[in-house]
Protein backbone atom coordinates (compact mmCIF):
# COMPACT_ATOMS: atom_id res chain seq x y z
CA UNK A 1 0.00 0.00 0.00
CA UNK A 2 1.33 3.47 -0.80
CA UNK A 3 1.48 6.25 1.79
CA UNK A 4 -1.47 8.62 1.81
CA UNK A 5 -3.16 11.41 3.69
CA UNK A 6 -6.47 10.51 5.34
CA UNK A 7 -9.24 13.05 5.73
CA UNK A 8 -12.97 13.01 6.45
CA UNK A 9 -15.63 14.72 4.34
CA UNK A 10 -18.56 16.22 6.22
CA UNK A 11 -20.78 17.10 3.27
CA UNK A 12 -20.99 16.18 -0.39
CA UNK A 13 -19.62 19.61 -1.29
CA UNK A 14 -16.76 19.09 1.17
CA UNK A 15 -15.94 15.75 -0.50
CA UNK A 16 -16.00 17.29 -3.96
CA UNK A 17 -13.83 20.22 -2.79
CA UNK A 18 -11.33 17.90 -1.12
CA UNK A 19 -10.77 16.03 -4.38
CA UNK A 20 -10.32 19.39 -6.11
CA UNK A 21 -8.04 18.85 -9.09
CA UNK A 22 -6.16 15.95 -7.47
CA UNK A 23 -6.29 13.10 -9.97
CA UNK A 24 -5.16 10.48 -7.47
CA UNK A 25 -7.38 11.48 -4.54
CA UNK A 26 -9.99 8.80 -3.83
CA UNK A 27 -13.12 8.38 -1.75
CA UNK A 28 -13.30 5.51 0.70
CA UNK A 29 -16.61 4.11 1.94
CA UNK A 30 -16.65 0.52 3.27
CA UNK A 31 -13.09 0.04 2.05
CA UNK A 32 -13.71 -3.61 1.19
CA UNK A 33 -12.59 -3.22 -2.41
CA UNK A 34 -10.38 -0.15 -2.30
CA UNK A 35 -8.22 -1.16 0.69
CA UNK A 36 -7.81 -4.64 -0.80
CA UNK A 37 -6.61 -3.23 -4.14
CA UNK A 38 -4.32 -0.75 -2.37
CA UNK A 39 -2.76 -3.53 -0.29
CA UNK A 40 -1.79 -5.28 -3.54
CA UNK A 41 -0.51 -1.94 -4.93
CA UNK A 42 -2.94 -2.34 -7.83
CA UNK A 43 -4.34 1.06 -7.17
CA UNK A 44 -2.90 4.04 -5.34
CA UNK A 45 -4.18 7.24 -3.81
CA UNK A 46 -2.41 10.34 -2.55
CA UNK A 47 -5.38 11.21 -0.35
CA UNK A 48 -8.20 9.07 0.95
CA UNK A 49 -11.38 11.00 1.63
CA UNK A 50 -13.68 9.16 4.03
CA UNK A 51 -17.25 9.75 2.83
CA UNK A 52 -18.96 8.00 5.76
CA UNK A 53 -19.32 11.16 7.90
CA UNK A 54 -21.32 12.88 5.11
CA UNK A 55 -24.83 13.41 6.41
CA UNK A 56 -28.10 12.91 4.56
CA UNK A 57 -27.43 9.72 2.59
CA UNK A 58 -27.50 7.10 5.32
CA UNK A 59 -31.14 6.06 5.08
CA UNK A 60 -33.64 4.12 3.00
CA UNK A 61 -36.74 6.16 2.25
CA UNK A 62 -39.91 6.07 0.19
CA UNK A 63 -39.68 8.30 -2.85
CA UNK A 64 -42.37 8.85 -5.52
CA UNK A 65 -43.93 5.46 -4.83
CA UNK A 66 -40.52 3.81 -5.09
CA UNK A 67 -37.51 3.73 -2.79
CA UNK A 68 -34.37 5.80 -2.43
CA UNK A 69 -31.32 3.90 -1.15
CA UNK A 70 -28.74 6.16 0.48
CA UNK A 71 -25.29 5.60 -1.00
CA UNK A 72 -23.68 5.17 2.41
CA UNK A 73 -26.15 2.62 3.76
CA UNK A 74 -24.46 -0.76 4.11
CA UNK A 75 -25.37 -3.69 1.89
CA UNK A 76 -26.52 -5.63 4.99
CA UNK A 77 -28.82 -2.86 6.23
CA UNK A 78 -30.28 -2.56 2.72
CA UNK A 79 -30.90 -6.30 2.30
CA UNK A 80 -32.60 -6.62 5.69
CA UNK A 81 -34.56 -3.37 5.55
CA UNK A 82 -38.29 -4.14 6.01
CA UNK A 83 -39.28 -2.08 2.93
CA UNK A 84 -36.74 -3.90 0.77
CA UNK A 85 -37.62 -7.36 2.09
CA UNK A 86 -41.31 -6.69 1.49
CA UNK A 87 -41.33 -4.72 -1.77
CA UNK A 88 -38.01 -5.57 -3.46
CA UNK A 89 -37.18 -9.10 -2.28
CA UNK A 90 -35.18 -9.65 -5.50
CA UNK A 91 -32.72 -6.96 -4.40
CA UNK A 92 -32.53 -8.43 -0.92
CA UNK A 93 -31.80 -11.93 -2.28
CA UNK A 94 -29.14 -10.66 -4.68
CA UNK A 95 -27.29 -8.72 -1.98
CA UNK A 96 -27.38 -11.69 0.40
CA UNK A 97 -25.93 -13.93 -2.31
CA UNK A 98 -22.80 -11.75 -2.42
CA UNK A 99 -19.64 -11.76 -0.30
CA UNK A 100 -19.93 -12.67 3.41
CA UNK A 101 -21.94 -11.28 6.30
CA UNK A 102 -18.92 -9.35 7.61
CA UNK A 103 -18.23 -7.78 4.21
CA UNK A 104 -21.90 -6.90 3.70
CA UNK A 105 -21.82 -5.15 7.10
CA UNK A 106 -19.01 -2.91 5.76
CA UNK A 107 -19.77 -2.60 2.04
CA UNK A 108 -21.91 0.36 1.03
CA UNK A 109 -24.47 0.69 -1.76
CA UNK A 110 -22.40 3.34 -3.55
CA UNK A 111 -19.19 1.32 -3.29
CA UNK A 112 -20.86 -1.83 -4.58
CA UNK A 113 -21.48 -0.16 -7.97
CA UNK A 114 -17.82 0.79 -8.22
CA UNK A 115 -16.13 -2.45 -7.23
CA UNK A 116 -13.56 -3.59 -9.78
CA UNK A 117 -13.32 -6.81 -11.72
CA UNK A 118 -11.97 -10.03 -10.21
CA UNK A 119 -10.12 -11.01 -13.41
CA UNK A 120 -7.08 -13.02 -12.24
CA UNK A 121 -4.74 -11.08 -14.52
CA UNK A 122 -6.04 -7.73 -13.33
CA UNK A 123 -5.06 -8.89 -9.82
CA UNK A 124 -1.61 -10.06 -10.91
CA UNK A 125 0.61 -6.99 -11.34
CA UNK A 126 3.21 -9.08 -13.19
CA UNK A 127 0.98 -9.70 -16.21
CA UNK A 128 -0.22 -7.35 -18.96
CA UNK A 129 -3.74 -6.01 -18.45
CA UNK A 130 -5.39 -3.18 -20.37
CA UNK A 131 -7.69 -2.40 -17.48
CA UNK A 132 -4.84 -1.96 -15.02
CA UNK A 133 -2.29 -0.56 -17.47
CA UNK A 134 -3.93 0.81 -20.65
CA UNK A 135 -2.16 -0.38 -23.80
CA UNK A 136 -0.27 -3.24 -22.14
CA UNK A 137 -2.46 -5.99 -23.63
CA UNK A 138 -4.96 -8.49 -22.27
CA UNK A 139 -3.59 -11.68 -20.70
CA UNK A 140 -7.01 -13.26 -20.38
CA UNK A 141 -7.78 -13.41 -24.11
CA UNK A 142 -5.25 -16.20 -24.68
CA UNK A 143 -4.94 -17.16 -21.02
CA UNK A 144 -7.01 -19.17 -18.60
CA UNK A 145 -10.29 -17.40 -19.25
CA UNK A 146 -12.76 -19.66 -17.45
CA UNK A 147 -14.40 -16.87 -15.43
CA UNK A 148 -14.44 -14.27 -18.22
CA UNK A 149 -17.22 -12.66 -20.24
CA UNK A 150 -19.24 -14.10 -23.14
CA UNK A 151 -21.32 -11.03 -24.03
CA UNK A 152 -20.27 -7.52 -25.05
CA UNK A 153 -16.53 -8.30 -25.03
CA UNK A 154 -13.86 -6.56 -27.10
CA UNK A 155 -10.33 -7.39 -28.20
CA UNK A 156 -9.11 -5.15 -25.40
CA UNK A 157 -10.81 -6.84 -22.43
CA UNK A 158 -13.06 -9.79 -21.62
CA UNK A 159 -13.46 -9.16 -17.88
CA UNK A 160 -16.76 -9.41 -16.03
CA UNK A 161 -18.24 -7.01 -13.54
CA UNK A 162 -18.54 -9.05 -10.34
CA UNK A 163 -21.42 -7.50 -8.38
CA UNK A 164 -24.56 -9.41 -7.40
CA UNK A 165 -26.50 -6.43 -6.07
CA UNK A 166 -26.12 -4.62 -9.39
CA UNK A 167 -27.72 -7.49 -11.32
CA UNK A 168 -30.92 -6.98 -9.33
CA UNK A 169 -30.66 -3.18 -9.68
CA UNK A 170 -30.40 -3.57 -13.48
CA UNK A 171 -33.50 -5.79 -13.51
CA UNK A 172 -35.37 -3.30 -11.31
CA UNK A 173 -34.67 -0.29 -13.57
CA UNK A 174 -32.77 1.63 -10.89
CA UNK A 175 -31.39 5.16 -11.34
CA UNK A 176 -28.07 6.38 -9.89
CA UNK A 177 -28.00 9.89 -8.39
CA UNK A 178 -24.69 11.75 -8.49
CA UNK A 179 -23.27 15.05 -7.19
CA UNK A 180 -20.11 16.55 -8.57
CA UNK A 181 -18.20 19.74 -9.31
CA UNK A 182 -20.80 20.61 -11.98
CA UNK A 183 -23.86 19.96 -9.83
CA UNK A 184 -26.22 17.01 -9.71
CA UNK A 185 -27.22 14.46 -12.33
CA UNK A 186 -28.86 11.06 -12.63
CA UNK A 187 -27.96 8.07 -14.80
CA UNK A 188 -30.25 5.14 -15.65
CA UNK A 189 -28.72 1.99 -14.18
CA UNK A 190 -28.27 0.26 -17.52
CA UNK A 191 -26.26 3.29 -18.75
CA UNK A 192 -24.06 3.46 -15.65
CA UNK A 193 -21.53 0.70 -16.35
CA UNK A 194 -19.61 0.56 -19.64
CA UNK A 195 -18.68 -2.15 -22.09
CA UNK A 196 -14.90 -2.46 -22.46
CA UNK A 197 -14.55 -1.24 -26.06
CA UNK A 198 -11.00 0.08 -26.40
CA UNK A 199 -11.10 1.83 -22.99
CA UNK A 200 -11.49 -1.05 -20.54
CA UNK A 201 -9.76 0.95 -17.80
CA UNK A 202 -12.95 3.04 -17.54
CA UNK A 203 -15.51 0.85 -15.77
CA UNK A 204 -18.44 3.25 -15.67
CA UNK A 205 -19.67 6.73 -16.53
CA UNK A 206 -18.98 8.34 -13.15
CA UNK A 207 -16.47 11.17 -13.56
CA UNK A 208 -13.51 11.73 -11.28
CA UNK A 209 -14.56 13.74 -8.24
CA UNK A 210 -18.25 12.84 -8.53
CA UNK A 211 -19.99 11.28 -5.52
CA UNK A 212 -22.82 8.76 -5.77
CA UNK A 213 -25.37 10.05 -3.27
CA UNK A 214 -28.27 7.61 -3.73
CA UNK A 215 -29.92 4.98 -5.90
CA UNK A 216 -33.62 5.17 -6.76
CA UNK A 217 -35.73 2.15 -7.57
CA UNK A 218 -39.16 2.70 -9.11
CA UNK A 219 -42.39 1.37 -7.66
CA UNK A 220 -42.48 -1.92 -9.54
CA UNK A 221 -40.64 -4.43 -7.34
CA UNK A 222 -41.83 -7.84 -8.66
CA UNK A 223 -42.43 -8.94 -5.08
CA UNK A 224 -44.75 -11.81 -6.03
CA UNK A 225 -42.66 -13.54 -8.69
CA UNK A 226 -38.94 -13.06 -8.41
CA UNK A 227 -35.78 -15.12 -8.04
CA UNK A 228 -32.02 -14.67 -7.92
CA UNK A 229 -29.90 -17.67 -8.88
CA UNK A 230 -26.12 -17.62 -8.48
CA UNK A 231 -24.04 -20.43 -9.95
CA UNK A 232 -20.48 -20.67 -8.65
CA UNK A 233 -17.73 -23.08 -7.72
CA UNK A 234 -18.74 -23.18 -4.03
CA UNK A 235 -22.25 -22.99 -2.58
CA UNK A 236 -21.39 -19.82 -0.79
CA UNK A 237 -18.85 -17.01 -0.53
CA UNK A 238 -17.60 -17.04 -4.11
CA UNK A 239 -18.18 -14.80 -7.11
CA UNK A 240 -20.73 -15.87 -9.72
CA UNK A 241 -19.79 -17.84 -12.82
CA UNK A 242 -23.27 -16.94 -13.99
CA UNK A 243 -26.07 -15.33 -12.05
CA UNK A 244 -29.61 -14.38 -13.05
CA UNK A 245 -32.12 -11.95 -11.58
CA UNK A 246 -35.68 -12.52 -12.75
CA UNK A 247 -38.87 -10.61 -12.01
CA UNK A 248 -42.18 -11.64 -13.55
CA UNK A 249 -45.56 -9.96 -13.48
CA UNK A 250 -48.32 -12.47 -14.14
CA UNK A 251 -51.96 -11.78 -14.83
CA UNK A 252 -54.49 -14.54 -15.43
CA UNK A 253 -51.70 -17.05 -16.07
CA UNK A 254 -50.04 -14.82 -18.70
CA UNK A 255 -46.73 -12.92 -18.43
CA UNK A 256 -47.50 -9.18 -18.51
CA UNK A 257 -43.92 -8.12 -17.92
CA UNK A 258 -40.61 -9.94 -17.52
CA UNK A 259 -37.25 -8.64 -16.35
CA UNK A 260 -34.13 -10.71 -16.79
CA UNK A 261 -30.60 -9.57 -15.98
CA UNK A 262 -27.41 -11.63 -15.94
CA UNK A 263 -24.27 -11.37 -13.81
CA UNK A 264 -20.86 -12.93 -14.45
CA UNK A 265 -21.24 -12.80 -18.24
CA UNK A 266 -20.25 -9.26 -19.25
CA UNK A 267 -18.35 -6.10 -18.34
CA UNK A 268 -21.73 -4.73 -17.13
CA UNK A 269 -24.79 -6.23 -15.44
CA UNK A 270 -26.41 -7.61 -18.63
CA UNK A 271 -30.07 -6.83 -19.18
CA UNK A 272 -31.83 -9.26 -21.56
CA UNK A 273 -34.36 -6.84 -23.04
CA UNK A 274 -34.89 -8.81 -26.26
CA UNK A 275 -35.79 -11.93 -24.27
CA UNK A 276 -38.07 -9.89 -22.01
CA UNK A 277 -39.93 -8.60 -25.09
CA UNK A 278 -40.44 -12.13 -26.34
CA UNK A 279 -41.99 -13.25 -23.05
CA UNK A 280 -44.56 -10.45 -22.98
CA UNK A 281 -48.14 -11.81 -23.24
CA UNK A 282 -46.90 -15.41 -23.35
CA UNK A 283 -47.58 -18.30 -21.01
CA UNK A 284 -44.93 -18.98 -18.36
CA UNK A 285 -43.81 -22.31 -19.80
CA UNK A 286 -40.40 -23.96 -19.87
CA UNK A 287 -40.41 -23.76 -23.68
CA UNK A 288 -41.06 -20.04 -23.70
CA UNK A 289 -38.36 -19.43 -21.09
CA UNK A 290 -35.92 -21.54 -23.13
CA UNK A 291 -36.73 -19.52 -26.23
CA UNK A 292 -36.15 -16.27 -24.33
CA UNK A 293 -32.81 -17.66 -23.12
CA UNK A 294 -31.78 -18.45 -26.71
CA UNK A 295 -32.60 -14.89 -27.74
CA UNK A 296 -30.68 -13.34 -24.81
CA UNK A 297 -27.57 -15.44 -25.46
CA UNK A 298 -27.75 -15.20 -29.27
CA UNK A 299 -24.76 -12.85 -29.51
CA UNK A 300 -22.60 -14.76 -27.01
CA UNK A 301 -19.00 -15.65 -27.89
CA UNK A 302 -17.04 -18.21 -25.91
CA UNK A 303 -13.25 -18.20 -25.43
CA UNK A 304 -11.10 -21.26 -24.93
CA UNK A 305 -12.12 -22.11 -21.37
CA UNK A 306 -15.41 -20.30 -20.84
CA UNK A 307 -17.66 -21.52 -23.67
CA UNK A 308 -19.50 -23.65 -21.10
CA UNK A 309 -20.95 -20.41 -19.74
CA UNK A 310 -23.18 -19.99 -22.79
CA UNK A 311 -25.14 -23.17 -22.11
CA UNK A 312 -24.89 -22.56 -18.35
CA UNK A 313 -26.45 -19.10 -18.73
CA UNK A 314 -29.30 -20.43 -20.89
CA UNK A 315 -30.13 -23.14 -18.39
CA UNK A 316 -29.80 -20.70 -15.49
CA UNK A 317 -32.34 -18.38 -17.13
CA UNK A 318 -34.85 -21.20 -17.58
CA UNK A 319 -34.30 -22.52 -14.07
CA UNK A 320 -34.57 -19.08 -12.54
CA UNK A 321 -37.77 -18.19 -14.41
CA UNK A 322 -39.32 -21.41 -13.09
CA UNK A 323 -38.08 -20.59 -9.57
CA UNK A 324 -39.64 -17.13 -9.93
CA UNK A 325 -43.02 -18.82 -10.33
CA UNK A 326 -42.51 -20.25 -6.81
CA UNK A 327 -40.20 -17.86 -4.97
CA UNK A 328 -40.91 -19.60 -1.66
CA UNK A 329 -38.80 -22.55 -2.83
CA UNK A 330 -35.58 -20.51 -2.91
CA UNK A 331 -32.72 -21.61 -0.68
CA UNK A 332 -30.30 -19.38 1.29
CA UNK A 333 -27.40 -17.96 -0.69
CA UNK A 334 -29.31 -18.05 -4.02
CA UNK A 335 -28.80 -21.74 -4.62
CA UNK A 336 -31.25 -23.55 -6.93
CA UNK A 337 -34.47 -24.63 -5.23
CA UNK A 338 -34.72 -28.26 -4.16
Amino acid at each position, binding site marked *: *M*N*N*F*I*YTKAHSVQDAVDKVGGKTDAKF*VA*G*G*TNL*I*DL*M*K*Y*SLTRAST*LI*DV*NPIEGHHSIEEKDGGIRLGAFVTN*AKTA*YHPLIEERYPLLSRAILAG*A*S*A*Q*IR*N*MATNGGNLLQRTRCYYFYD*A*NTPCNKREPGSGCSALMGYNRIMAILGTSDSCIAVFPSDMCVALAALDAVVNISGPDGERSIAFTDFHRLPGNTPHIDNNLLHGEVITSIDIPEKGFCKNYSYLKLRDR*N*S*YAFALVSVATGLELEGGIIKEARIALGGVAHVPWRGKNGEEFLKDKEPTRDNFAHAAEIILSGAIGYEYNSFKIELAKRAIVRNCIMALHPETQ*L*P*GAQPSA
Partner: protein
Amino acid sequence: MILPYPIVPDVTDDGFDTQTVTLNVNRMKIELQILPWVSLLDALREYSDLTGTKKGCDHGQCGACTVLCDGERILSCLTLAVMKEGSEITTIEGIAQDGQLHELQKAFIEYDAFQCGYCTPGQICSAIGMLREGKAKTRDEVKELMSGNLCRCGANNNIIDAIMDVKNQGNYE
Protein backbone atom coordinates in the same frame (compact mmCIF):
# COMPACT_ATOMS: atom_id res chain seq x y z
CA MET B 1 14.55 -12.87 -4.35
CA ILE B 2 12.08 -10.89 -6.42
CA LEU B 3 9.26 -9.46 -4.36
CA PRO B 4 5.96 -9.22 -6.24
CA TYR B 5 4.92 -5.87 -4.81
CA PRO B 6 6.82 -2.83 -3.58
CA ILE B 7 7.36 -2.83 0.16
CA VAL B 8 6.33 0.42 1.75
CA PRO B 9 8.18 1.64 4.83
CA ASP B 10 6.10 1.81 7.99
CA VAL B 11 7.50 5.13 9.12
CA THR B 12 8.03 7.93 6.66
CA ASP B 13 10.27 10.93 6.39
CA ASP B 14 8.40 12.42 3.45
CA GLY B 15 5.77 14.42 5.25
CA PHE B 16 3.34 11.71 6.25
CA ASP B 17 2.52 12.13 9.91
CA THR B 18 1.17 9.76 12.46
CA GLN B 19 -2.27 10.63 13.79
CA THR B 20 -3.63 10.28 17.30
CA VAL B 21 -6.47 7.79 17.23
CA THR B 22 -8.56 6.85 20.23
CA LEU B 23 -10.14 3.42 19.99
CA ASN B 24 -12.59 1.95 22.49
CA VAL B 25 -11.55 -1.67 22.63
CA ASN B 26 -13.15 -4.14 25.03
CA ARG B 27 -14.60 -1.28 27.10
CA MET B 28 -11.17 0.35 27.43
CA LYS B 29 -9.90 3.53 25.80
CA ILE B 30 -6.69 3.02 23.85
CA GLU B 31 -4.84 6.03 22.48
CA LEU B 32 -2.53 5.27 19.56
CA GLN B 33 -0.07 7.25 17.45
CA ILE B 34 -0.37 5.59 14.08
CA LEU B 35 -0.01 6.24 10.37
CA PRO B 36 -3.28 6.46 8.39
CA TRP B 37 -2.69 3.24 6.46
CA VAL B 38 -2.53 1.03 9.56
CA SER B 39 -5.39 -1.47 9.47
CA LEU B 40 -7.57 -1.98 12.52
CA LEU B 41 -6.15 -5.52 12.62
CA ASP B 42 -2.57 -4.25 12.86
CA ALA B 43 -3.62 -1.56 15.33
CA LEU B 44 -4.95 -4.32 17.59
CA ARG B 45 -2.20 -6.89 17.11
CA GLU B 46 0.91 -4.77 16.62
CA TYR B 47 0.15 -1.61 18.57
CA SER B 48 -2.25 -2.72 21.33
CA ASP B 49 -0.89 -6.14 22.26
CA LEU B 50 -4.26 -7.75 21.54
CA THR B 51 -3.08 -10.74 19.53
CA GLY B 52 -6.25 -12.79 19.96
CA THR B 53 -7.58 -11.48 16.64
CA LYS B 54 -5.80 -13.42 13.89
CA LYS B 55 -4.36 -12.36 10.56
CA GLY B 56 -5.09 -15.01 7.94
CA CYS B 57 -5.30 -13.69 4.39
CA ASP B 58 -5.21 -9.94 5.18
CA HIS B 59 -7.54 -9.48 2.15
CA GLY B 60 -11.08 -10.11 3.35
CA GLN B 61 -11.20 -13.72 2.26
CA CYS B 62 -11.00 -15.83 5.42
CA GLY B 63 -12.76 -14.15 8.36
CA ALA B 64 -9.89 -14.81 10.83
CA CYS B 65 -9.73 -11.09 11.66
CA THR B 66 -13.45 -10.71 12.48
CA VAL B 67 -14.18 -8.34 15.38
CA LEU B 68 -17.37 -6.67 16.55
CA CYS B 69 -17.66 -2.96 15.78
CA ASP B 70 -20.60 -1.22 17.44
CA GLY B 71 -22.09 -4.68 17.87
CA GLU B 72 -21.71 -5.74 14.23
CA ARG B 73 -19.19 -8.22 12.88
CA ILE B 74 -16.67 -6.70 10.47
CA LEU B 75 -13.27 -7.57 9.02
CA SER B 76 -10.48 -5.69 10.77
CA CYS B 77 -8.02 -6.36 7.93
CA LEU B 78 -9.96 -4.24 5.41
CA THR B 79 -10.70 -1.49 7.95
CA LEU B 80 -8.39 1.47 8.54
CA ALA B 81 -7.96 2.14 12.25
CA VAL B 82 -8.34 5.89 11.66
CA MET B 83 -11.85 5.25 10.32
CA LYS B 84 -12.98 3.69 13.62
CA GLU B 85 -12.28 6.57 16.01
CA GLY B 86 -15.08 6.58 18.59
CA SER B 87 -16.50 3.14 17.68
CA GLU B 88 -16.90 0.36 20.24
CA ILE B 89 -14.68 -2.55 19.23
CA THR B 90 -14.94 -5.97 20.85
CA THR B 91 -12.26 -8.58 20.21
CA ILE B 92 -12.05 -12.16 21.44
CA GLU B 93 -10.24 -10.86 24.56
CA GLY B 94 -13.38 -8.95 25.51
CA ILE B 95 -15.87 -11.79 25.11
CA ALA B 96 -15.47 -13.52 28.49
CA GLN B 97 -16.79 -11.46 31.39
CA ASP B 98 -16.07 -11.57 35.12
CA GLY B 99 -13.90 -14.63 34.63
CA GLN B 100 -16.79 -16.50 32.99
CA LEU B 101 -16.42 -17.84 29.46
CA HIS B 102 -19.11 -16.80 26.98
CA GLU B 103 -21.65 -19.53 26.15
CA LEU B 104 -20.14 -19.83 22.68
CA GLN B 105 -16.65 -20.29 24.08
CA LYS B 106 -17.97 -23.08 26.33
CA ALA B 107 -19.82 -24.67 23.41
CA PHE B 108 -16.69 -24.59 21.20
CA ILE B 109 -14.85 -26.57 23.90
CA GLU B 110 -17.75 -28.96 24.45
CA TYR B 111 -18.24 -29.68 20.74
CA ASP B 112 -14.55 -29.95 19.88
CA ALA B 113 -15.07 -27.07 17.44
CA PHE B 114 -11.41 -26.36 16.76
CA GLN B 115 -8.17 -28.09 15.98
CA CYS B 116 -5.32 -25.59 15.59
CA GLY B 117 -7.54 -22.81 16.93
CA TYR B 118 -6.40 -20.25 14.39
CA CYS B 119 -9.85 -19.45 13.04
CA THR B 120 -11.55 -19.75 16.45
CA PRO B 121 -11.44 -16.10 17.64
CA GLY B 122 -12.92 -14.96 14.32
CA GLN B 123 -15.48 -17.77 14.33
CA ILE B 124 -16.65 -16.85 17.83
CA CYS B 125 -16.87 -13.10 17.18
CA SER B 126 -18.66 -13.83 13.91
CA ALA B 127 -21.11 -16.23 15.60
CA ILE B 128 -21.92 -13.65 18.28
CA GLY B 129 -22.63 -11.11 15.54
CA MET B 130 -24.74 -13.62 13.64
CA LEU B 131 -26.86 -14.57 16.65
CA ARG B 132 -27.42 -10.88 17.39
CA GLU B 133 -28.52 -10.27 13.79
CA GLY B 134 -31.24 -12.87 14.39
CA LYS B 135 -31.63 -13.75 10.71
CA ALA B 136 -30.64 -17.40 10.68
CA LYS B 137 -33.48 -19.75 11.57
CA THR B 138 -32.32 -23.09 10.16
CA ARG B 139 -29.02 -24.95 10.15
CA ASP B 140 -28.66 -24.20 6.43
CA GLU B 141 -29.08 -20.51 7.12
CA VAL B 142 -26.52 -20.62 9.93
CA LYS B 143 -24.05 -22.31 7.56
CA GLU B 144 -24.69 -19.67 4.91
CA LEU B 145 -24.31 -16.77 7.33
CA MET B 146 -21.12 -18.25 8.83
CA SER B 147 -19.58 -18.92 5.40
CA GLY B 148 -17.30 -15.88 5.63
CA ASN B 149 -15.27 -17.72 8.28
CA LEU B 150 -13.08 -20.42 6.79
CA CYS B 151 -11.53 -23.20 8.86
CA ARG B 152 -8.45 -24.74 7.31
CA CYS B 153 -8.58 -27.64 9.74
CA GLY B 154 -12.06 -28.59 8.59
CA ALA B 155 -13.72 -28.27 11.99
CA ASN B 156 -16.75 -26.71 10.31
CA ASN B 157 -19.34 -29.32 11.26
CA ASN B 158 -18.46 -29.09 14.94
CA ILE B 159 -18.38 -25.30 14.72
CA ILE B 160 -21.92 -25.27 13.35
CA ASP B 161 -22.99 -27.82 16.00
CA ALA B 162 -21.62 -25.57 18.75
CA ILE B 163 -23.37 -22.51 17.32
CA MET B 164 -26.67 -24.37 16.83
CA ASP B 165 -26.60 -25.54 20.44
CA VAL B 166 -26.10 -22.01 21.78
CA LYS B 167 -28.70 -20.67 19.37
CA ASN B 168 -31.26 -23.29 20.43
CA GLN B 169 -30.60 -22.60 24.11
CA GLY B 170 -31.30 -18.95 23.40
CA ASN B 171 -28.85 -17.82 26.10
CA TYR B 172 -26.34 -15.87 24.09
CA GLU B 173 -26.87 -12.25 25.10
